[in-house]
């Protein structure tokens, strides 16, 4: 039931957002988001955007994971 694919807000019209998921456009309600903005990435469930992806947290996690991966590589 949960669609985990981050979608980008490309248009906002009366609390309805047009979202882009890898080139495919679809609509979702923005009623449950605080202050949605064009260009932000959101998670969508049952036709509603539920959360903005925290870009810095996403990058930070990846950086840590990559570093950890590199360390494991060295050991082997």
């Amino acid at each position: 039931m949960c669609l985990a694919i981050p979608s980008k807000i490309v248009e906002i019209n009366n609390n309805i957002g047009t979202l882009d998921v890898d080139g495919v456009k679809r609509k979702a309600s923005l009623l449950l988001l605080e202050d949605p903005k064009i260009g932000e990435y959101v998670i969508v469930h049952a036709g509603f955007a539920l959360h903005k992806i925290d870009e810095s947290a996403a990058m930070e996690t990846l950086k840590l994971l990559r570093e950890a991966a590199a360390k494991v590589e060295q050991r082997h």
Partner: protein
Amino acid sequence: MGIKYLDEYRDVEISESIVQKIAAISKKNIRLMEVCGTHTMSIFRSGIRTLLPDTITLISGPGCPVCVTAQRDIDAFIELSRVDGVVLATFGDLMRVPGTKSSLQKESAAGSDVRIVYSPMDALEIAKKNPEKKVVFLGVGFETTAPTIAASILSAKEMGIDNFYVYSAHKLVPPALTVLMETKGVKIDGFILPGHVSVIIGINAYAQFFDQYKVPSVVTGFEPVDLLQAISMLVEQVETGKPCLGNGYQRAVTSEGNVKAQSVMRDVFEPMDANWRGIGVIPGSGLKIRKAFEPFDAQKMFNVETTDTKEPKGCACGEILTGLKIPPECSLYKKACTPTDPVGPCMVSSEGTCAAYYRYHDSD
């Protein structure tokens, strides 16, 4: 073109390195439960079970909303679909769930107006376009879904739509965790906590549970890297004897969650005791529509009778939902019960544990 923040979390190299780390640190035999149906599907699909050392057993919990819906509610849905002038709007997963005597799919074939929608807003749209009909939306889901349905009720009120109703069979995750810890015969050494439920309720919502049981618990997302990362965090907590309540999904989950969604949910719903399939009544684990929104409450506005409700004979769904059994231990699994001819909801829903085993488990 890659999808931002998706491909990275499917990275094979990162996954492999986490698997190696898990193998290196895991000594004790442990059982970890994933509480979310979407996690169950991701774990099976990505083959994570086969990558883990023998010390780690993954068990599935009560995280498939359709599966935990009580048989009495399923029977009430079916009765509702028979009411004159009713259009029943539902997420697709409910269609084939067998009630005591029928299913929504059978009712639909027999002439009831049952429509599959993707969002409660679609149901509201049907109500708007068909003022002579009574449109009932079946509210089945956890904290991820409840705010979307609450928002649709608020919209209906705002737009003055008076032929839209919701049957609220919502369930809440934290109260169920307590029951899982108290269930005799189930040993759970750590919880992989749901991602999108946590997007809404936040890490803090588990604090009370965690303080009480001190069992390793990590919230995470749905990609292989997310899941492996959570498993690695849990194994580390077990091995060091330092349980904590961790957040492995920081790009989407905060401590306080989506406050706006929580307040929308609180405006429309209040907690109630709810009956879960196979578990029974869990105090404060459901949501009912507040008195102020009674005209939208299908349970109040339609008086459907459900008598002789019976769960499917021989179906072990209830025990599977609490981790007491795995699907191959059900005598009907793969014999009388298959995805094309399901006996219980755990085989119907795309997120059901029996369906996941059937599709991806080939070792038996």
